[in-house]
């Protein structure tokens, strides 16, 4: 397998209430180009921190050790063809305070650019969309910024993306504002914006957790299709091991900032090696699970 990125000994520490909390501890793993890779864990496992670290979106106040090495064979240059070294250095910016997200200081090779090489879909689409900007513009902006298209080209691209994410009426949606859409429709728009620049890597961080089961299944099917059509690598971050197993080829299980177990989906599900992975699988309440009601002896 060809690695898209190699993470070695990655440690991320946040300052909280004056003390340092390690959100990730000495994590090493490779993500292969073109694979669907799931990161699962409960709250505090470090799964979102890992996703943010890969995307270069860690808060400026975090301390990072280790490396993320990118192996992008044909990492596209920005449309202006400026070498990366003259990209604006934002690390010295002070406005916004310590919590402002900026490209982190992780040692990386051929640092990819968020939005262009990496698309990111968050849990809450309302928080990632601008509430007072028409949806068409929000998607077109990504295409214009990263692909060097004109506004009219970008707008046409936005419309075709809305068709690809199967929004019911793409023409009307272009002019709509986020509050006019349902949660599932907003997440489709957020996905359209995330893939607008044709990223190599799509990161979905709990992207379906706020949606009901039926919409969740539709969004997962959409992500699966888009990733296959565009040859993207998928990083699927979730608390739901059953959902991850339906989508991913490999699963990495995290707990308390540590990588507990990593393997092919079938192996993780059918023969987990780590007790914690087994506990997670046992805690899953499937439709065919033994009812707790009956276990409690409270049958009626």
């Amino acid at each position, binding site marked *: 397998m060809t690695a898209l990125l190699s993470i070695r000994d990655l440690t991320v520490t946040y300052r909280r209430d004056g003390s340092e909390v390690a959100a990730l501890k000495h994590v090493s793993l490779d993500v292969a180009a073109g694979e669907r890779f799931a990161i699962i864990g*409960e709250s505090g496992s470090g799964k979102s921190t890992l996703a943010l670290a890969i995307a270069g979106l860690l808060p400026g106040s975090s301390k990072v050790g280790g490396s993320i090495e990118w192996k992008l064979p044909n990492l596209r240059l920005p449309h202006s063809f400026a070498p990366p070294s003259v990209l604006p250095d934002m690390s010295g910016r002070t406005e916004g305070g310590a919590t402002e997200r900026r490209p982190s200081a992780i040692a990386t090779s051929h640092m990819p650019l968020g939005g262009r090489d990496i698309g990111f879909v968050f849990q809450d689409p309302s928080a990632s969309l601008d509430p007072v900007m028409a949806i068409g513009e929000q998607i077109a902006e990504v295409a214009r910024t990263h692909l060097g298209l004109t506004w009219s080209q970008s707008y046409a691209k936005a419309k075709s993306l809305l068709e690809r994410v199967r929004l019911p009426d793409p023409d009307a949606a272009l002019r709509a504002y986020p509050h006019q859409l349902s949660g599932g429709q907003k997440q489709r728009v957020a996905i359209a914006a995330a893939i607008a620049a044709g990223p190599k890597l799509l990161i979905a961080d709990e992207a379906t957790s706020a949606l009901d*089961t039926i919409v969740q299944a539709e969004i997962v099917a959409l992500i699966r299709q888009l990733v296959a059509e565009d040859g993207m690598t998928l990083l699927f971050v979730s608390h739901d091991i059953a*959902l991850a197993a339906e989508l991913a080829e490999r699963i990495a299980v995290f707990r308390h900032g540590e990588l507990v177990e990593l393997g092919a989906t079938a192996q993780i599900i059918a023969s987990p090696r780590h007790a914690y992975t087994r506990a997670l699988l046992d*805690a899953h309440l499937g*439709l065919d699970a033994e009812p707790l009601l009956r276990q409690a*002896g409270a049958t009626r």
Partner: protein
Amino acid sequence: MSSPLLAVSGLTKRYRRGGKTIAAVDDISFHIEPGETLALAGPSGSGKSTIARLVLRLIEPDAGHIEFEGGDFLSLNGAALRARRARLQMVFQDPLAAFNPRAMVARVLDDPLRTHGVASRPERTRRIAALLERVGLSADLAARAIHEVSGGQRQRIAIARAIATKPSLIVLDEAVSALDVSVRRQILQLLLDLQRQERIAYLFISHDLGVISAIAHRVVILDAGRVAESGNARAVIGAPQSAIGKALVAAAPKLNRTSQGAADRQ
């Protein structure tokens, strides 16, 4: 069984939206027996949470009747309503939103005791410690602030508050949806233990059929404000008859722990 604990009939709630009138809850009827768990399932917008709010009388219906503990619940007001509300409690999805985050745990549990007439302060302090132990928490937690405790502990505190007034029915609206799976199982177990010991009935609202089939006796599946189907939870989820029931079952993530290559089926 004699008369049901809660009997809802013809319940209807309409909203105006963009000049049109939409029935969020449209002629819904169901009943709950003492000590029984009835689940309401359905996609977003099916009316689950509106029913919860109607039953709790946080909003008033446009039509229909609610009978609770043998009396007309909708006609109650003032002191009579307050007194009856002690028997009908609620737990929501996000306890952090339900509580003042800066409040002490003791204060959160003291409120219902005081409101519903447990008079003396020493007696209330004793009851608070007992409530915390009842839900599997240390009595020491009483001195902590709500925002300082974990999500699972917070939901236990929400349950402790709900049982403080010795209710016969608790409405749980997505009460375990935001919890980690390992914590979720413990909370479900706690709910079952309380039900068995105190004979509390639950109106359990969830979009998760796995959770429902684990703890509910019966289920009502809702679609666009109407009842799509209802019956024994295991039977309905095992062989749904309605289109929405089938869609919900099909969409539930399934963990096949024996087969190979679950991810390879495209």
